[in-house]
């Protein structure tokens, strides 16, 4: 390739380069289609069949029958209700705690050890969810768990309590584990937003005699709205699809008390091998998460503008 090449030769080269570019992009294109598009379409197709992984050649085409039967199924709605409870309670607590901790950290910038605190608060988030689940399972263990040990020494309880035996309590304790794991993520996003808030608004409010609480309600919170929206969408979608914590800590038990929708989908697909039902469930879960995201966006933007 020298600089004195003729016009036609350059365009010829460009054409050749374009062809080369196509061939270079091709592997990535094939991967993208193969890894995203094909499985997605296959899943939709499977959801229309009465397909069993062990008997794929004997699958009947039933169109929407899986969807219809799930929408009429009490077990499905119970699972959706449990998942919604998990989502709203855990995300709610995470948001309140996350904002409070972020405000605290940003307020005390000059305090000794502030940098250490800011890093330390992130540690739970860096712990893989599977490890988090295993750790909390040990903490809650009835006969050798740290929680029983601590409460007994403090005199709060007088005998060991089997924490995970009650379905509702098991759900709340899984939520606690999720909160421990995810609050740092909320803190991170909210602190980033806090740093960029304009100082002059606070100065003006100070001159007008606004209290700390008023400043928080009328300045900080409205300005944090976009960040809160991002946190809500990301965390709600994640929480709605919670799987690993349940898999490690409770396996959906006791008495289906923690049978969230993702774990139900997993059982249908990989335990019962009913890929048709499993695929239909996956799409129903996607529909619910999309709906959640849609509602949040509407709620948070309509008030502002």
């Amino acid at each position, binding site marked *: 390739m020298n600089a004195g090449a003729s016009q036609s030769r350059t365009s010829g080269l460009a054409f050749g380069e374009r062809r080369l570019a196509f061939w270079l992009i091709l592997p990535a294109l094939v991967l993208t289609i193969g890894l995203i598009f094909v499985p997605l379409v296959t899943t939709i197709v499977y959801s229309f069949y009465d397909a069993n992984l062990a008997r794929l050649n004997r699958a009947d085409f039933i169109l929407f029958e899986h969807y219809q039967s799930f929408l009429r199924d009490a077990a499905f709605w119970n699972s959706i209700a449990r998942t919604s409870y998990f989502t709203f309670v855990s995300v709610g607590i995470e948001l309140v705690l996350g904002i409070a901790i972020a405000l605290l950290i940003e307020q005390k910038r000059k305090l000794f050890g502030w940098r250490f605190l800011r890093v330390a608060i992130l540690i739970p988030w860096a712990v893989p969810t599977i490890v988090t689940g295993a750790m909390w399972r040990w903490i809650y263990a009835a006969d050798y768990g740290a929680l029983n040990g601590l409460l007994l020494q403090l005199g709060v309880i007088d005998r060991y309590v089997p924490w995970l035996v009650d379905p509702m309590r098991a759900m709340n304790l899984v939520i606690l584990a999720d909160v421990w794991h995810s609050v740092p993520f909320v803190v991170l996003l909210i602190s980033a937003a806090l740093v960029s808030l304009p100082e002059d608004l606070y100065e003006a409010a100070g001159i007008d005699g606004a209290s700390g609480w008023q400043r928080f309600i009328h300045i900080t919170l409205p300005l944090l709205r976009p960040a809160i929206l991002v946190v809500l969408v990301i965390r709600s979608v994640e929480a709605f699809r919670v799987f690993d914590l349940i898999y490690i800590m409770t*396996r959906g038990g006791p008495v289906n008390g923690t049978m969230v929708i993702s774990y139900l989908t997993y059982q249908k697909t990989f335990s019962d091998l009913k890929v048709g039902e499993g695929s239909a469930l996956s799409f129903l879960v996607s529909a619910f998460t999309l709906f959640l995201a849609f509602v949040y966006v509407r709620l948070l933007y309509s008030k502002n503008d």
Partner: protein
Amino acid sequence: MKLRLIIALVLAFMLFGSTISAQDQVVLNVLAMDQAGMTPEDMGEIADRFEAANPGVQVELQFVLYDGLYDTIVTSVSSNPPAFDIILVDDIWYAAFADAGWVLDVSDRITPEMRDGIFEAAWDITTVNEVVYGLPFLLDQKYFYYNTTLLAEAGFDAPPRTWEQVADMSRAIQANGVEYPMIWSWAQVEAVIPDFVTLLYGNGGRFLDEDNMPAFNDATGVATLQWMVDQVNEGLINPASITSAEEDVRNVFSAGNAAFAINWLYMYNLAQDPTESQVAGEIGISLMPVFESALEAGIESSTNNGSMGFAVTAGSQKQDAAWNFLSYLTSEEIQIEFSALQLPTWETAFDDPALLEANPVTVPMFAEQFPWSHVRPKVPYYPEASRILQLAIQEALTGARSPQEALDDAAAQIIEVAQDYQ
């Protein structure tokens, strides 16, 4: 031009390179388990010896935990050819895998020595409708464990023979200061079913009838579940049993917090190991109790068979080499040599004095218990049926429903599932 040539060469190498280099070698991909039984080191040693004796064959071992074994098989076996030539299959999965056509019919490959030498009950594990789909490998069953110190302190010098005695002794042991004398694996996982089967058959009941329809909800089944509920309500059973699997049972028992427990064979060596247990040297193991009425009827014991066998995948292109390796792995000599953590599948091996010398407690116990071992149902829809029953047992244990109601509903649901498989 040069660039394109290089790219073409690289792509060609990526596509065909691996095939070229592997052409002269038969590679056997084996999916095994790293939990209970032989360790990966043992298996590796056996594979090395096989490779040395069979030039040109290479054995690639891959290990997963029991909990991941089923998922790994079902997600890898449908590809063509399958990712594994040899898979370890739990006895409760054989019917489903045979129905799916995933495992090879090896009935014609079994030699008369294998047929006669390996336990008859071991063949039940890998046989579905009289067709043999694999070679028995890990023979296991639930054993009755007790803490000799806690029993002696309460004035007992012999283990109980009936569940009624277990309850009576538990009351005495509880009065002696042990908060919960019994621990069971009754969580909403597969672990609860072997315990239920043990009690059910020990009460003269059965899981399915001759037509493979649920029989666990008859009067005996309901009475069995009622007994379980009663022990929990009386406080003789650790309430954490409702969230416990086998490892939780081992932890509680090894901490000296329970007088009675039932578990697989592996707990014996671990509970006797001072680095793993606070009650090493205080472990008793005896014939599994039954209910009084059953004992009077001649049922001396009852337990659940939880064995596994290796199968060759139906789609494997190296079936002969795979079979040769399996024959070697499950041969009598190898099974005797590596008997520390799993007992041989060969009945003839138990005549060998070396085996008894190496395992003075577990070998006689195995021989005594094994005739009373019951397999869980061999139906292709077992995993789903199991989940339905797990939930029913949990509902009864937590008082959400009566045993009769819970079991009747489970039976109805299982009949519905079975109809899909007609």
